[in-house]
């Protein structure tokens, strides 16, 4: 049965085997990024978010401070002509979300954080899940995930003009800086609009596609306040305020879809679309219960904006993939750090809810 080859042929065979295995292992290492130290990985992006004192262990790596809400999304049916997603059919669907501050520090004082956000999940009876993560500025600070990574690394730079250099290299940043410098602050999560910023593609029943961006527009009266005045209200005022406000009355946001005109950028969330676009109000988010994050229903949810129901899909906006991969990394990390943020541990007296 056996036909032993010569020792020369054996050596050639062994060499061929070694070369095959080495090539396989090298290909695997290449694809995994171990041979590409400059590849921007989700780990690098998430690590860059950490403040100098280190990440808030057990918490989201960004938008680390937040509070849970539950309520309903009342769809008025206007969205059904644009998308076959069941959340746009007239009806009332369970909503779950999280109001938060755009900071990596879970203990940041409210008035030190310029950007606020909302994570939202809408589920429909057919089992479809739609998750969103939105922020209150009407534009993203930078045009690409790579630029965002650079921005995060500016504070670590040893160059004295690092921020100036960054702004010069990324002119879109000026639009955001102007918003940050001039937009009024408010003393309530309920008074903020939350913008999806990234473009998505709606698919209707006929398969026709339309590009949209969405926003949740507050129905509460907006009362501008200065950041100094907000600071005087206390470091955790926003959470205290939303607890009290929702206990008195449900809070509402109207979901508005803005349809792109031909030529509008679908891939660059740092550029707001000009006025005059068709806007369709598709329903109202009604928040009727607030719960502390520690044991609240939003805690274990990754508000990954690429988790979409049938009828909505991602556009060519590169932030969507970058956010999805980084959010997953953040979730993997924080779920492994639960001992630093345990459930059902009585909060020490005087701490925030």
């Amino acid at each position, binding site marked *: *049965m*056996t*036909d*032993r*080859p010569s020792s020369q*042929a*054996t050596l*050639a*065979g*062994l060499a*061929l*085997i070694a070369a*095959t*295995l080495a090539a*396989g*292992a090298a*290909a*695997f290492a290449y*694809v*995994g*990024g171990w041979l590409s130290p400059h*590849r*921007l*990985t*989700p780990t690098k*992006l998430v690590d860059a978010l950490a403040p100098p004192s280190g990440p808030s262990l057990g918490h989201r790596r960004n938008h680390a401070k937040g509070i849970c809400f539950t309520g309903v999304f009342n769809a008025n049916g206007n969205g059904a002509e644009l998308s076959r997603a069941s959340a746009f059919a007239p009806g009332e669907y369970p909503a779950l979300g999280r109001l938060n501050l755009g900071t990596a520090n879970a203990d940041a004082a409210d008035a030190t954080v310029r950007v606020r956000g909302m994570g939202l999940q809408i589920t429909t009876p057919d*089992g*479809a*899940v739609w998750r969103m993560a939105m922020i209150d500025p009407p534009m993203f600070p930078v045009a690409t*995930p790579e630029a965002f990574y650079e921005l995060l690394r500016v504070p670590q730079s040893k160059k004295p003009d690092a921020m100036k250099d960054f702004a010069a290299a990324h002119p879109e940043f000026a639009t955001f800086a102007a918003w940050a410098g001039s937009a009024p602050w408010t003393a309530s999560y309920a008074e903020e609009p939350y913008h999806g910023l990234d473009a998505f593609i709606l698919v209707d029943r006929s398969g026709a596609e339309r590009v949209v961006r969405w926003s949740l527009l507050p129905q509460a009266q907006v009362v501008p306040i200065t950041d100094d005045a907000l600071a005087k209200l206390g470091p955790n005022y926003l959470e205290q305020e939303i607890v009290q406000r929702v206990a008195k009355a449900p809070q509402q946001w109207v979901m508005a879809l803005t349809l792109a005109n031909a030529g509008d950028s679908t891939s660059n969330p740092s550029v707001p679309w000009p006025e005059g676009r068709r806007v369709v109000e598709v329903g109202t988010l009604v928040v009727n219960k607030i719960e502390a994050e520690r044991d609240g229903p939003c805690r*274990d*949810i*990754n508000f*990954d904006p*690429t*988790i979409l129901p*049938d009828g909505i899909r*991602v556009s*060519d906006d*590169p932030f*969507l*993939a*970058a956010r*999805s*991969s*980084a959010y997953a990394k953040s*979730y*993997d990390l924080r*779920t*492994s750090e*639960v001992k630093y943020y345990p459930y059902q541990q009585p909060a020490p007296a005087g701490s925030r809810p």
Partner: protein
Amino acid sequence: MMTQRTKFTVLQRLLHWTMAVCILAMLFIGVGMVSTIMPKYIPLLATHKTLGIVILVLALIRLGVRLYYGAPPLPEDLPEPMKLAAHLSHYAFYVLMIGMPLLGWAMLSAGAYPIVLYGGLRLPAILPQSDALHTLLWDAHFYLAFGFFALILMHVGAALFHLLVLRDGVFASMAPLPANADPAAGE
């Protein structure tokens, strides 16, 4: 026909080579997707989930087929340690082919992620949300993937060793093409 088969059945060989392509693709997609933030992350993730379920179904079919048809015997003159390694590695393959997709499915369930495959097919959660389980399953899925790849390299090395050095017909028993040119086939 009571003579012992010297080759796996055509169905077994078809399953073997189809799954070989799927599993290699799966492992490369896995390490590729977790190391990138580029737009390809989204289709890679969707493919990883879908292909994982395809592999799970194929592996269960294959297990049934294997239990029904068995396997041709290894050459009698193969040293015992190599026979043992061959047998153990095949158990490991079945454990991983069935276990890895289940670990991934369970991991996503424990993370409260909806599990949606290509074509909009939704799978139910097989575990409730749990931080501890998510972490355990994530670690298992991650580290076993490297174990799986190492096992495949060993398997390829051993197969080529049989083909190129021992020339004992073991490779031909699972060869993708009818090995009519193989003098060791013995049929």
